């Protein structure tokens, strides 16, 4: 038999039909929806007089547009409230399970999927949110879709997709002190740019990836979309199985054994060929920080912003525009730059390990007076775990508070907006102009680097505080 990649194995087993010279009709095992990108899809379904084809394969949560304070009270912003109510109405009408506000399973869609054992190896998963790629960390094909495609899945449990090309990125070696998976992915994007992965689905491999925890792997796959890729995935292994076992919706007993046998077959054959293969060394990666307005504009925290002469001629215009927006100069050192806000959260770094990492640095220290910090857990589950583990106490002692779960300042649809001109070290995934609020200046970094900024009030190498 022809050697195939993990991606091929999962994709090919989900093809219902191939349109001649066209896309594949791909069967979707798990569909996830939220309040922002689903209402128009339901309108489409209703206008056609259709019912949702397989309601048990769609799961809904409210996360993008909700407040992170006073969640027990009605949402104040009228449009946001209507959007959340619309989701409830649509889920009721179509028999879709909803983990809405206040539900113990509520949280950011890409946090709750893995956490509840809904995301499993070998699955196809889609959601109307580009960071659906997060779920790939458990060895599934997961990608973000538009609302028309949400409508397709609601109507037929399938989606029309051309098969992407395949890339493998190998990272071997051992990570240095103060370096985490967020730094790995920011490093890769800084090397291949925000369009370097366009047209590809990426498998992350190598010893440095194998040694990562499940949650750390999620951070990597989460941001694979930021290099333009359709998604990213990591072959399931003992770490994966260990993580899934015993979770709320994970298979158990005989079902578990059956699943496990299948999951163990999910890997890339030794001589399978990728359209592109890239190799990096873990030792070359330092704590990263972005200085510009796309996730590819990142550097090792100890480096300087490139000089204009070091920037590719075609990119100089947008480089200048970016620096102007950030009010930085070419050649500036990042270390020591003052910071106003720190945002810890999002589907990139809003899980329990991220809060642990943040707490490991702020423990025994104090929040810098100049800093406003928003620490937003990715789900209720994360929130209660943080309390149980005593992280909340550590945070509070250091002068931080924990908000309620949601997307929050990651996209600033709710009230959590960074004011114009202010600098925010954020553990989220996008530093686009205005992403965290009109005029906001975002510096993407890991939870460790965010913690270092939070206690010093400026950009600081986390390795110095460990």
């Amino acid at each position, binding site marked *: 038999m022809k050697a195939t990649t993990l991606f091929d194995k999962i994709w090919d087993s989900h093809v219902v039909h191939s349109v001649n010279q066209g*896309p594949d*009709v791909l069967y979707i095992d798990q569909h996830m929806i939220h309040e922002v990108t689903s209402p128009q899809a339901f309108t489409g379904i209703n206008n056609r007089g*259709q019912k949702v084809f397989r309601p048990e394969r769609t799961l809904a949560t409210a996360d993008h547009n909700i407040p992170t304070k006073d969640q027990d009270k009605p949402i104040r912003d009228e449009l946001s409230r209507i959007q959340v109510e619309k989701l409830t109405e649509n889920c009721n009408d179509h028999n879709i399970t909803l983990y809405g506000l206040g539900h113990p399973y509520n949280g950011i869609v890409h946090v709750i999927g893995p956490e509840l054992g809904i995301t499993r190896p070998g699955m196809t998963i889609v959601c109307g949110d*580009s960071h659906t790629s997060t779920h790939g960390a458990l060895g599934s094909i997961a990608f973000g879709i*538009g609302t*028309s495609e949400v409508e397709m899945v609601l109507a037929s449990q399938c989606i029309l997709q051309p098969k*992407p090309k395949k890339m493998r990125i190998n990272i071997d070696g051992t990570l240095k002190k103060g370096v985490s998976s967020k730094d790995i992915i920011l490093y890769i994007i800084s090397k291949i740019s925000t369009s370097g992965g366009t047209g590809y689905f990426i498998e992350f491999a190598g010893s440095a990836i194998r040694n990562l925890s499940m949650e750390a792997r999620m951070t990597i796959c989460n941001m694979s979309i930021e290099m333009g890729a359709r998604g990213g995935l990591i072959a399931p292994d003992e770490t994966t199985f260990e993580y899934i076992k015993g979770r709320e919706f994970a298979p158990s007993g005989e079902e578990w054994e059956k699943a496990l046998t299948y999951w163990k077959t999910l890997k890339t054959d030794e001589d399978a060929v990728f359209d592109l293969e890239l190799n990096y060394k873990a030792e070359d990666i330092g704590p990263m920080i972005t200085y510009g307005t796309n996730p590819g504009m990142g550097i090792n925290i100890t480096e300087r912003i490139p000089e204009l002469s070091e920037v590719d001629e075609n990119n100089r215009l947008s480089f200048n525009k970016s620096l102007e927006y950030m009010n930085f100069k070419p050649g500036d050192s990042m270390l020591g730059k003052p910071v106003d806000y720190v945002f810890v959260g999002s589907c990139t770094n809003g899980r329990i390990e991220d809060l642990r990492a943040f707490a490991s640095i702020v423990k025994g220290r104090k929040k810098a007076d100049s800093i406003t910090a928003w620490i937003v857990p990715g789900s209720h589950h994360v929130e209660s775990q943080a309390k149980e583990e005593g992280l909340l106490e550590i945070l509070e002692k250091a002068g931080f508070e924990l908000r309620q779960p949601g997307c929050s300042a990651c996209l600033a649809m709710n009230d959590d907006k960074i004011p114009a001109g202010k600098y925010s070290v954020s553990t989220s995934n996008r530093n686009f102009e205005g992403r965290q609020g009109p005029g906001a200046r975002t510096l993407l970094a890991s939870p460790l680097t965010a913690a270092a900024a939070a206690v010093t009030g400026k950009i600081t190498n986390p390795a110095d505080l460990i």
Partner: protein
Amino acid sequence: MPIEKFNILKSACVPLPVENVDTDQIIPARFLKATSRKGFGDNLFRDWRYDNNNQPISSFVTNNPVYSGSILVAGKNFGSGSSREHAAWAIHDYGFKVVISSFFADIFKNNALNNGILPVQVSESFLVELFSEIVTDPQTTVKVDLPAQTVTILSKGLSEKFEINPYKKECMMNGFDDIDFLLSMKEKITEYEQSRPL
């Protein structure tokens, strides 16, 4: 939603010579609260078009009366970022039928096609030529011929082929919609479900 049929379009262009125009620029997140598809055009490029007091910024292209037409010409890597289809709706609602760039982000390309917007990917040199023509003469007319898959700057006679998936081309030319197609496949889908290993 059935899409408009697309065949041949001749139009002046609106130039946006900026690279990496991401979906947050096309439609900022705070405008994603609507529950219908209508009205997004008003907020297309919102933070470039209007200042903090909601006054139009005269230097921005869409506020410049010399530029008109249903073709948007943009720099490399257009539409990167979020999967929000609102970006495509905003472009469509504003009145653009074609976006020309030298590179498109994947999800945006799908979203555009699903809404009857034709993404036309041209070479870097063609794009440079097109921008300079439009700057010299804002009335520069471009012909986009979908059946022939060509894009032509009429005044210069400069023409280039562009790629489109044959299935998507069919859909655009006939105003077909993917959902109708998928609904017609239900039997096959049910069959597939029964044969699934897990």
